[in-house]
């Protein structure tokens, strides 16, 4: 009983001032670490590269996330662009069509507040004056990247929003049907998207008219994806980073001077393997204990 009372008493004893201060500070630091870690974990997860298409002229994703202030002026410009505003027959503005660009809202599972578009629903229509890019106050949409260096004029064909890829098995052109809807929809028809004719061996007398995307020209506007006639588009735009491979410096086109320049800056790696002291014949005869002697 006495012991128990002592225990209760010791709990109730007031803490010394220094001890109280120490505990308080420790608690604050602990809470700061707790909050900071939770917060950074969430943000790190949320910024993880998503399959999303950015407006024309967007910086690469990590710089874009840094620089975009999420003001939505590009979306404003996209909604109110020429041709998107609807007028009645008296010339009065009565509304707009849905714009291509949207700002990521909670539930979109995209980095919050940043502009993106979904090509299958509403592709980029490649306006000549690219209203969204000059509207950007932060430089996250880089005007220079879509300005022709010689003419100093905006050139939307320089945009690299993504790259269209074709899924052969669901593309009916690969079945031998004549389609070319994507080809007709492409604003750079004949350059970014061409039709490759091949013989259809199944019938022996028809041609396959196969869509082929050229990654050096394709802007990723998504008009092809929007036009695709199958249920889920067989040609679709992916961010270039996801859609493209990279050769690296191990291979080079020996017949192409430009390609040689590409690897020109590569640093050669010297790996030195220690020279075997055994004679080659011994090496061949030595089975490394695989067989019983």
């Amino acid at each position, binding site marked *: 009983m006495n012991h128990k009372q002592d225990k209760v008493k010791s709990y109730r004893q007031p803490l010394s001032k220094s001890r109280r201060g120490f505990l308080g500070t420790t608690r604050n630091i602990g809470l700061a670490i707790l909050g900071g870690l939770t*917060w950074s974990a969430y943000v790190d997860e949320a910024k993880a590269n998503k399959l999303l298409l950015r407006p024309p002229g967007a910086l690469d994703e990590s710089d874009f996330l840094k620089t975009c*202030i999420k003001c939505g*002026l590009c979306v404003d410009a996209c909604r109110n662009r020429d041709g998107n505003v609807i007028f009645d027959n008296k010339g009065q503005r009565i509304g707009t069509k849905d714009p291509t660009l949207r700002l990521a809202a909670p*539930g979109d599972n995209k980095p919050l507040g940043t502009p993106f578009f979904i090509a299958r629903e509403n592709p980029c229509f490649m306006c000549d004056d690219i209203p969204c890019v000059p509207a950007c106050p932060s430089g996250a949409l880089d005007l220079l990247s879509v300005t022709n260096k010689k003419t100093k004029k905006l050139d939307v064909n320089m945009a690299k929003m993504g790259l269209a890829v074709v899924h052969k098995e669901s593309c009916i052109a690969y079945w031998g049907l004549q389609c070319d809807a994507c080809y007709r929809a492409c604003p750079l028809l004949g350059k970014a998207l061409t039709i490759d004719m091949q013989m259809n061996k199944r019938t022996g007398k028809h041609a396959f008219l196969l869509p082929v995307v050229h990654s050096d020209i394709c802007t990723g506007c998504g008009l092809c994806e929007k036009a695709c006639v199958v249920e889920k588009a067989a040609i679709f735009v992916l961010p270039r980073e996801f859609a493209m491979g990279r050769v690296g410096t191990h291979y080079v086109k020996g017949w192409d001077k430009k390609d040689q320049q590409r690897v020109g800056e590569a640093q050669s790696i010297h790996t030195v393997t220690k020279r075997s002291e055994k004679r080659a014949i011994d090496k061949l005869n030595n089975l490394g204990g695989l067989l019983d002697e």
Partner: protein
Amino acid sequence: MNNVRFLIARRVVQITIILLYFGANYYGWKMLAGNLSSSLILGTIPLSDPYAVLQMFVAGAAISSNILIGAVIIFLFYAIFGGRAFCSWVCPVNIITDAANWTRRKFGFDMVAKKQPSTRNLRYWVLLISLIISFFLGLAAFEFISPISMIHRGIIFGMGFGWAAMVILYLFDLFVLKNGWCGHICPLGGFYSIIGKFRLLKVRHDSVACTGCMKCKVVCPESQVLHMIDKVSIPVTSGECTNCGRCIDVCEDNALGFFLKVDNNNKKGEINNEKNE
């Protein structure tokens, strides 16, 4: 009508600003386009949220001149004139947290959980942590989670599940922590508290006229700033005052009011005698 003067004025300003943004997007108005992160007046004058720009700077972004000019304009406006007026006159979250506060008072939730489990200095910690995270992750950390931007952006550009953020803030302020978001956590409020320390627009107090009814302290969302009530005739100098004017609205003794002054010590034109003299 006199006791809701500033309340109505604030609601009008808040709603007008959001409406102008909304109109800029949906109707192509030019008056005020963008949102509270960054906007453009009449297509020419840029405005930017200085706290967002600070985070971007710490994250290592190249700050464009437009953004910088906009941030300086806003910074100077609140630092020299308005103080934390952004919080009560512009921010749409204020409507939600005021509603939570009103519900608390109306139904007496204040009587249930009286002890506040958190310090109001929390917001300065959140501010500091936001800058540290921005630095290490290379992006504006608070802008990624800010319920303020979710809400104003939601109203202007499409809400998504942003309504959930509104409900969360309301319930949090109502049942978890009184003045929880605006008065304890929000680092943007903390930011404006710091830069608004030397503002011109302040609330003055006349302790002679004061009858000590304490109605002002009941309605004040930052009641610690009203420590002088019924004691000394000094202006509210704490940067945490949001200049919402609610205290002036409810004061029936004309003991509170707005005034513009550079000097924090009150000299001429101010009543200087103390209550107990």
